[in-house]
């Protein structure tokens, strides 16, 4: 039995700025012809929350340049909106491919939980190239886990 014919658990790791379509394409190539359990993990960084904790931080609108206080509440709001948008995007892609998908949101600082979710029973982990030097991935690369990093329009950086 070839690897493509086995039932696999494929994990896609995402950040706020990841090329979703490219990552999805790489995942589809990886599971081509076989049944697979697909999990998407959104690893969000803490930058917005950290910046929002400062009393003088302001958000400058990209349409018009007006500025407003950038609070923790605003950071939470942005994170939730980003996660929802990514989840919707992923679910639409999964619908079209006829696959079911699980979606998880984790802070990148929660290394233990992230490592568990990424590696537990996974056959392949697909992530954006920006995570290549992330401590969790540095750790995972030391294991037997097959990891694929995808840069925009470049899906062969295994």
């Amino acid at each position, binding site marked *: 039995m070839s690897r493509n014919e086995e039932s696999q658990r494929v994990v896609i790791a995402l950040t706020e*700025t990841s090329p979703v379509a490219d990552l999805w394409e790489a995942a589809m190539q990886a599971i081509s012809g076989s049944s697979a359990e697909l999990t998407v993990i959104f690893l969000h960084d*803490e*930058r*917005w*929350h*950290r*910046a929002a*904790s*400062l*009393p*003088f*931080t*302001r*958000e*400058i*609108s*990209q*349409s*018009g*340049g007006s*500025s407003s206080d*950038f609070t923790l509440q605003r950071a939470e709001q*942005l994170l939730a*909106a*980003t996660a929802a*948008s990514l989840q919707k995007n992923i679910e639409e892609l999964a619908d079209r491919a006829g696959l079911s998908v699980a979606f998880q949101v984790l802070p990148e600082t929660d290394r233990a939980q992230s490592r568990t979710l990424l590696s537990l029973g996974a056959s392949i982990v697909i992530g954006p190239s920006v995570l290549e030097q992330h401590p969790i991935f540095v750790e995972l690369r030391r294991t037997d886990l097959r990891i694929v990093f995808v840069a925009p329009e470049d899906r062969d950086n295994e």
Partner: protein
Amino acid sequence: MRSDELPAGTPHLGQQRAIDAIRFGIEVERPGYNVYVLGPLGSHRHGLVRELVDERASRKGPPEDWCYVNNFSDPERPRALAFPAGQGREFRDDMHALIEDMRVAIPAAFESDDYRNQMRAIEEETEKEVEAQWKSLEAEAAREGIGVLQTPTGYVLAPIREGKVIDDKEFEKLPKKEQRQIQVHIKRLSEALQARIESMPRLQKLHRERVKALDQRIIAHAVTVLLDELKQKYKTLDKVTAYLDEAQQNIIDNAQDFQQPKTSPLPFLSRDSSQLFTQYEVNLLTHNGEGQGAPVVYEPNPNYPNIIGKIEHRAEMGALVTDFRMIRSGALLQANGGYLVLDIYRVLSRPFVWDALKQALLNRYIRIETPGESYGFVSTTSLKPEPIPLKVKIILIGERWLYYLLSMYDHEFDELFNVAADLDDEIERSRENVQSYSQLVADRARTGELLPLSESGVRRVIEQAARNAGDSERLSMHIRSLDDLLIQSDHWARKRGSKVIERQDVASAISKREHRLDRSRNKVLEAIDRDVLLIETAGARVGQVNGLSIIDLGEFRYGHPMRITATTRMGTGDVVDIEREVELGGAIHSKGVLILSSALTSRYARETPLSIHASIVFEQSYGGVEGDSASVGELCALISSISGIPVLQNLAVTGSINQLGRVQVVGGINEKIEGFYDVCRSRGLDGTHGVVIPRDNIKHLMLREDVVEAVRDDKFAVYGVRDVDEAVTILTGVEADIVNAKVEDQLVRYATLRKEFSEKQEGDEQE
């Protein structure tokens, strides 16, 4: 000679004057020389007009073709283009082919490698400019230890230490001076960031302009070749080449509209780019083939849209919309350069049409608009198509009364229709005309694919034509009546298995037709037979005369005997017309009674005052009396009453008189005689019955065959009289001199009595 052996006859027998007038009218190519053809229904006026107009039109060249095209600078005012005959259709097809070519060429141009490369170059250029701005800001921020974080809706500037954004706790640990510096840097960088963001629309505008210029270059390249071919083809038509220039410029100006966006947030509102091409289509309104003559249009339903044209609308998103493609031409435009034939009665009975028609003729152009707009009733915006020059000859066909009515009350009518073609209702029954009429009968039978007529059959048809003319010396030219008679005669001939229409078939057709229509006449005869309507046909009565009236039911008319009575007594010289008193008498009838009063005073006892009181009435008449044809009868009744000499009831009388006692002609003489004949026949003809008619009416006699036979057999008599004396003599059986003397005596006696009565009355008053 049988009708099928007769040579083809002169077309439109007896109508030479009308033919000359129509020819004159259609040959004079000047404004106002439109034609009105006067003639009754069924006079073959349409056939005549069509024949003459077709003949003239075939000798003229075809007129220009007319199209409406989009006016790109003002779409509400579509532009009219004229083409030599046949080229309008060609231009429409050329533009259609151009659109089809553009449908392929334009998308292909936008998908070409050349376009993509140039587009990529523009995008890269713009991206570089944007990136350069960001890079410089990010680099500047990095130098100050500040990071630019992107959020889904904007940017956040935050201090960075060791590659990480510091939080509030870490910030608190920094020296106060550094904290202040960070805040100063962030403030300054925020301002720089805002300035860059504010400059983005300018960059975007610049980008759009570059893209637009590229699109225009690409589309110009794609369509110029296609349009140049057309411009070359139509180079002699200035207005057309100007339109093509504008179309080209419009395509280039709107190049980006031809690129369909991939997705639309509101798909039902998105514009299908294929629809954009429709604005370059051509609405061909009139087209004429080369080699064909001028158009001849007959519009049977001349309502406003059918004559002037219309602008149609279609429902779109709940609103009614229109454009130049929905302009429809009317008969005026279809006939432009040729001839338009209309029934005036129909034109006048359709709202707004007459006015619009006159406007078009006076202005010499046709403006297609709704009546609401024309009269200023509509305030919503619609199209105002460019008016089209009008050069049309209108031939109105109608009855005489309408012509005279228009002539009298419409001051523009004579100016616009100054050629009248008056069709003759009848022709003289000369030897030549009878021959020509026979040929006409033969022609109509041949044209109608009817059986041929025998010589006697033709003769009977000619007799009926004279009867229809109401004159034995004339022939009716009512072609529809002739056709009807021939068709019906054919039917009865075939019914009895004959191959030829004989005299008996024509007679059958006439009698059967009468039978179908004579219910009313039979009711009258029945009422007379049953003495419901009192008419005596035997004996003699003082002051009672059988008069003759006519009942006209349009398709059928018949004679109706009426009893006229007069009573007299001493009085002050007044003759009372009871019909007039109760307003049942018409103006002409009243005039007749006044004339007979005058005739009475001028004939009798001229040197004594007229001292009678007389009253005259049509007995059992309830529906009004009109005409003066009973005035001889009324005067005879009056004379009988005054003289006391009875009038023979086996006779009836008709005729009008003048003040001098002369008997004058009346209409419907045949039907009147036949009306009394029918009453007498049903009671039994004994050779004493007859009618007294004006002698001048003798030439009009075209009596039914059975009446003619009765007269020939001395069972019935027709007396022609010249004056009242002759009428009195026949009606009373007493010499007029004797009757007149008695009248004179009685009038003198009345005068004497009146004088005595007056003197006695004056004496009584003095006492």
